């Protein structure tokens, strides 16, 4: 019998570990001139295993803690990851079950969408991130996401159990 009281603690632990790993390790490992994004990976894994509710919740929380340690506009990561988490959960819940190799493809496409969304909103709010950097960023994040999404989904199942909805999810139904 799983203790549901531990679920939020496990979720928070995953976010903190991902944040520390991101800034202390992954940020230093460049592929094609850009780095991976573990906070987006956590968001995508949450959406793949728990649907749009869990995707948007993890996306917002992961983006928020990432925003705390970045110099980029505060709230932009939270907005981007919330939208991507919701979208991934929605598409995977409604169109197909993310089994087999599908999660790898979904994680890679999510990287492209997230990078483009972040750059686009950046332009809207007056921070003109160069569009020319987008291909390298999307490629690097997609590679990292595809490589790690299956273990990340396993971690999410450890946090929530195979089918368990979170408390907010239950309250809103």
């Amino acid at each position, binding site marked *: 019998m799983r203790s549901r009281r531990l679920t939020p603690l496990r979720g928070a632990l995953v976010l903190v570990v991902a944040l520390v790993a991101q800034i202390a390790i992954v*940020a230093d490992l460049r592929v094609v001139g850009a780095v991976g994004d573990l906070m987006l990976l956590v968001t995508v894994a949450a959406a793949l295993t728990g649907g749009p509710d869990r995707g948007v919740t993890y996306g917002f929380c992961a983006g928020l803690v990432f*925003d705390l340690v970045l110099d980029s506009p505060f709230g932009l990561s939270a907005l981007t990851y919330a939208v991507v988490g919701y979208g991934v959960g929605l598409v995977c819940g*409604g169109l197909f079950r993310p089994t087999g190799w599908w999660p790898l493809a979904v994680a890679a496409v999510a990287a492209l969408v997230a990078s483009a969304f972040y750059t686009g909103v950046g332009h809207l709010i007056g921070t003109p991130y160069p569009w020319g950097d987008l291909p390298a960023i999307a490629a690097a994040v997609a590679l990292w996401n595809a490589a790690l999404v299956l273990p990340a989904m396993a971690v999410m199942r450890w946090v929530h159990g195979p089918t368990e909805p979170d408390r907010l999810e239950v309250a809103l139904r």
Partner: protein
Amino acid sequence: MAISPPTGSRTRFAVLVLASVTLLTVGLRDAPVVREVREGASAVIGPVEGAVDTVTAPVRNAWHGVTDYDDLQRENEELRAQAEAAEAEGVQTSDAERQLAELSASLDLPWAGNVETATARVVSGPRSNFSHAIEIDKGTDDGIAVGMPVVTGAGLVGRVSQATGGSSMVELLTDPEFQVGVRLATTGDLGTARGRGRGDPLSVDSAISPGTKVPKGTGVVTSGVDRSAYPPGIPVGTVASSRQGSGGLALDLDVDPLVDVDQLSYLTVMLWTDGG
């Protein structure tokens, strides 16, 4: 197959997106609370990051061993440092000549060489693909404050954007939000340089008339005009190309920074704030 979500999902999505947009709005207004929260988060995460950094150094070194050729990298760094120093010397020389010719104007200005400095080690590079800030191991305990210019022997690196007791964040001059007042070392024409991202040249909006020919390689230094955020005469870069500005009334310049922001190990923080 339908992809319409349950009502609860839509509500949660709307609430969290609204919350994100609110945070974005508050953050864009440079609210002190956001700055304080970020400084607090940096103070908490800094020691943890340092410890993990030390433990995982072998892994990262192995990665770099695979992705870089060590000897070539070292040789490259040495050559780059020599080239940058020579280039910076050239820029400084032409600037000094112009200053001599213009006599007393510059005598009243604080000269960068006389400013007190603090040397700091780069602890970590940018934390995400959209971040243009690096962390250094000196902070307010060493007299560092937000806004202070950061340089290397080659020239301007950026400015301190956040400072806590034992560490600081430095906004690199390649950041799209970075701006610095500059002048051409040869003619003294003024302009504003803006970052355009990693690996891209700085963009300089000048007041130079469109017919003027600005030779490639012309040095660009900080202007240090009244109430500037930077002392005058810090080498910034060299002109790579020039083109007519959008209004057709002035030239826009592309300027290659003298400093390679991807190869920074030690930096010098000039303990200089607006107005000296």
